[in-house]
């Protein structure tokens, strides 16, 4: 499995000083762009972008840094959307608690799914996550609280902390941005923590990690739950942004989409999935108005990426001459 | 007469690792040649590069006059080169007879199934067993036997006696002598020095990815000191 992430750039902490400086500059520019963006772009579109960017980054935690390909992440994203939508609409939870509920729910789903999936590796792991996710889909289809094919509609955004009205676009946008940034910081800290290091050593050389005495299964499960919880954060957020939660959010196609975003952006890079999500969301938006089917485009991009663009946008950048000049190193 | 196999300035790489540094050797038709050397000097690599398993290679490999540089791996046998790898490669999902019959016949002159069973009667007995249910020695016999059916002119063997009991080793020596009488050309890598001295016509000594000495079996007694030094035996 380490092979899949051999094409990824080196983890941030091993970068040279030049690279770190360049990286900081990019981050600051990025932040500025995000803060100023609602003046130039439609806020709902931006919020959708941020939600999916967070979703993709959460997914990448598992794929890029732990080396596990999950085909069932829609369960966490969509499941959290349902949980948040339900508690906010039916039980009158304030938005921050609603999202928290989504996160906790997604984490529990992650615990269950991870428990079963981790018993196998590689291909089998992927297939198991797909099957379990489909099981959750059928459950959502039939359960009462999800309201079946209609989904949960008219989810109120409410007032953040009791006084910030999230129905005002600007407020909502900066709330979403704030949550997104918190999520990114959590991911960043997690990757660079001792736990994260051990995950990476498991990805590199699992037998070695086992021989060193690490309980590999427990670490994998931990990563799985973490990834699920953060995907849930994105999902709960999304429920409030669009004010509905539907079956689409828990379908296998959604799981496929987040894989594409990560692959396109760069597996194993911290910011790659953000770009991947941006591209995919923009593409979907653009194609939504035209007659051209999104599925075909998605499928073709998948095939092309796997064949000739495995490093993804950011990965290719790190490996390019400009990237290397700026100090980013690339393995292989 | 031109040698059957001619290798000139052969270089080979395992990924980034440069493992063969200009190997030169010739194998005349009907000869039995042995490559000696310590572990890790490149003996197996040499064999695998000649066969074409290792493709990152430069230099000349000429077999029966033909340049083998662009011959794909699945055409090597058709040109007349047979290979018995170190791990023997007996297939567990095939019976002994299926293993025996697997390599396609690439030229005339190979042994018939009856002849092979005559030479290796224990294979006849076990012919319906799964290939890997045989003992190590029997598996080695099988690995050699299945190449004999194909009609190749050069038999390449990687450490045929490794891990086998002396009785079996002797049997293999007899097999190789029989093959030699039938005109088969043999190239083998061996650590078992004494076995090699009984079957080979000529020796190559290998160190650090290149040949450092070659001499006929007659000169062997005079080279013992050098061999002890280089091989550490």
């Amino acid at each position: 499995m380490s092979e899949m992430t051999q094409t990824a750039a080196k983890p941030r902490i091993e970068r040279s000083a030049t690279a770190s400086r360049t990286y900081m500059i990019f981050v600051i520019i990025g932040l500025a762009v995000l803060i100023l963006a609602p003046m130039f772009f439609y806020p709902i579109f931006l919020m959708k972008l941020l939600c999916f960017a967070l979703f993709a980054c959460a997914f990448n935690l598992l794929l890029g840094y732990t080396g596990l390909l999950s085909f069932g992440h829609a369960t966490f994203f969509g499941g959290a959307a349902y949980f948040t939508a339900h508690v906010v609409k039916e039980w009158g939870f304030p938005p921050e608690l609603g999202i928290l509920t989504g996160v906790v729910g997604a984490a529990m789903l992650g615990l269950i799914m991870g428990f079963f999936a981790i018993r196998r590796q590689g291909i089998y792991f992927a297939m198991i996550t797909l099957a379990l996710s489909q099981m959750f889909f059928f459950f959502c289809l039939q359960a009462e609280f999800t309201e079946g094919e209609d989904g949960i509609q008219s989810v109120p955004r409410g007032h953040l902390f009791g006084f910030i009205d999230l129905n005002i676009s600007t407020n909502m946008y900066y709330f979403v941005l704030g949550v997104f940034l918190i999520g990114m910081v959590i991911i960043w800290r997690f990757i660079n923590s001792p736990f994260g290091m051990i995950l990476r050593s498991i990805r590199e050389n699992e037998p070695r990690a086992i021989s060193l005495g690490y309980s590999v299964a427990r670490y994998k499960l931990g990563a799985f739950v973490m990834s699920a919880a953060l995907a849930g954060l994105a999902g709960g957020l999304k429920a409030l942004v669009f004010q509905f939660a539907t079956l689409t959010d828990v379908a296998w196609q959604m799981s496929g989409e987040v894989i594409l975003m990560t692959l396109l952006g760069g597996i194993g890079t911290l910011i790659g999935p953000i770009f991947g999500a941006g591209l995919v969301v923009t593409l979907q938006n653009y194609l939504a108005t035209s007659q051209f089917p999104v599925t075909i485009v998605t499928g073709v991009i998948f095939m092309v990426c796997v064949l000739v663009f495995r490093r993804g946008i950011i990965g290719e950048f790190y490996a390019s001459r400009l990237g290397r000049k700026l100090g980013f190193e690339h393995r292989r | 007469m031109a040698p059957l196999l001619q290798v000139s300035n052969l270089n080979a790489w395992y990924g980034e690792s440069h493992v063969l540094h200009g190997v030169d050797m010739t194998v005349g038709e009907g000869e039995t040649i042995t490559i000696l050397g310590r572990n890790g000097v490149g003996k197996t690599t040499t064999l695998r590069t000649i066969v074409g398993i290792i493709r990152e290679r430069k230099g000349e490999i000429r077999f029966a006059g033909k340049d083998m540089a662009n011959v794909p791996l699945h055409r090597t046998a058709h040109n007349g080169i047979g290979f018995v790898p170190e791990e023997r490669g007996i297939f567990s999902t095939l019976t002994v007879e299926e293993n025996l019959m697997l390599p396609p016949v690439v030229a005339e002159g190979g042994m018939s199934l009856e002849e092979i069973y005559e030479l290796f009667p224990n294979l006849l007995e076990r012919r319906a067993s799964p290939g890997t249910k045989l003992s190590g020695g029997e598996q080695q016999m099988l690995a050699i036997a299945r190449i004999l059916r194909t009609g190749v002119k050069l038999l390449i063997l990687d450490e045929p006696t490794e891990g086998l009991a002396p009785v079996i080793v002797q049997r293999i020596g007899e097999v190789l002598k029989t093959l030699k009488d039938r005109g088969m050309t043999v190239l083998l890598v061996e650590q078992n020095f004494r076995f090699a001295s009984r079957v080979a016509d000529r020796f190559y000594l290998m160190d650090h990815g290149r040949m450092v000495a070659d001499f006929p079996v007659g000169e062997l007694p005079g080279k013992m000191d050098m061999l002890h030094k280089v091989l550490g035996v």
Partner: protein
Amino acid sequence: MTMIFGIPLQAFLGQLLIGLINGSFYALLSLGLAVIFGLLRVINFAHGAQYMLGAFAAMLMLEYFGINYWVALILGPIVVGLFGAIIERTMLSRLYDLDPLYGLLFTFGLALTIEGTFRYLYGAAGQPYSVPAQLAGGTNLGFMFLPIYRGWVVVVSLVACIGTWLLIEKTKLGAYLRAATENPVLVQAFGVNVPVLLTLTYGLGAALAAFAGVLAAPIYQVSPLMGSNIIIVVFAVVVVGGMGSIMGAILTGYMLGIAEGLTKVFYPEASNIVIFVIMAIVLLLRPAGLFGRDA
């Protein structure tokens, strides 16, 4: 009216038959997946799409060329198999040196592309394909009514499964396949053109899927979604069975189909998830799968 376990016998046997039919498809499809995975080490996500292509091939051949079911049963798999072989030769084969998950992702993209194309051309709704005249109607067996086409499907898929098994276990070609699965480099060194063997195998797998598709056309509607609906269940079947053996894949397919049928009788709400539940249980008790050889 005879009762069994509190259910009318007719209803029980009727569901059991449906379960057996579904099991036939699960067996055929997981067989194809196992054959491809065994040699190519690729999980062919596009298997469902190839199944769908088989059904569409039958329907389109009838509509545009007046080709009947019987010819379609042969021609459909050939066409889809060829298409698969071309994909393998031009694209899939480039991925063999990489992590096997890339093969999964590539075939996933392929599945999306194929399904998206047909969805665009034909919409999501299903189209009918009629049962061929020779197999229409049914017979009354006394304890149940057996539609002839259903019986035909069970018999033919069994024959196809056993035929494939014989091909792999008893023929020379099968010996090459089995050997190449174990040690492809050595088999090449013996003079066998393994790359061509790989192409053939993928084509064969795709053809098997398409064959199942043609069989399915008169029973289920011919819809662009039929592939993705079934492939996820087949994945679960494959995890339960383990992909070590051909026979294991076949047996597991039939067993799980029947299990699904039985669940429909006694606990219908759970029928679409029972296979996944069984998968979860098997993962707890015997992670390598019922017939699996590697963990």
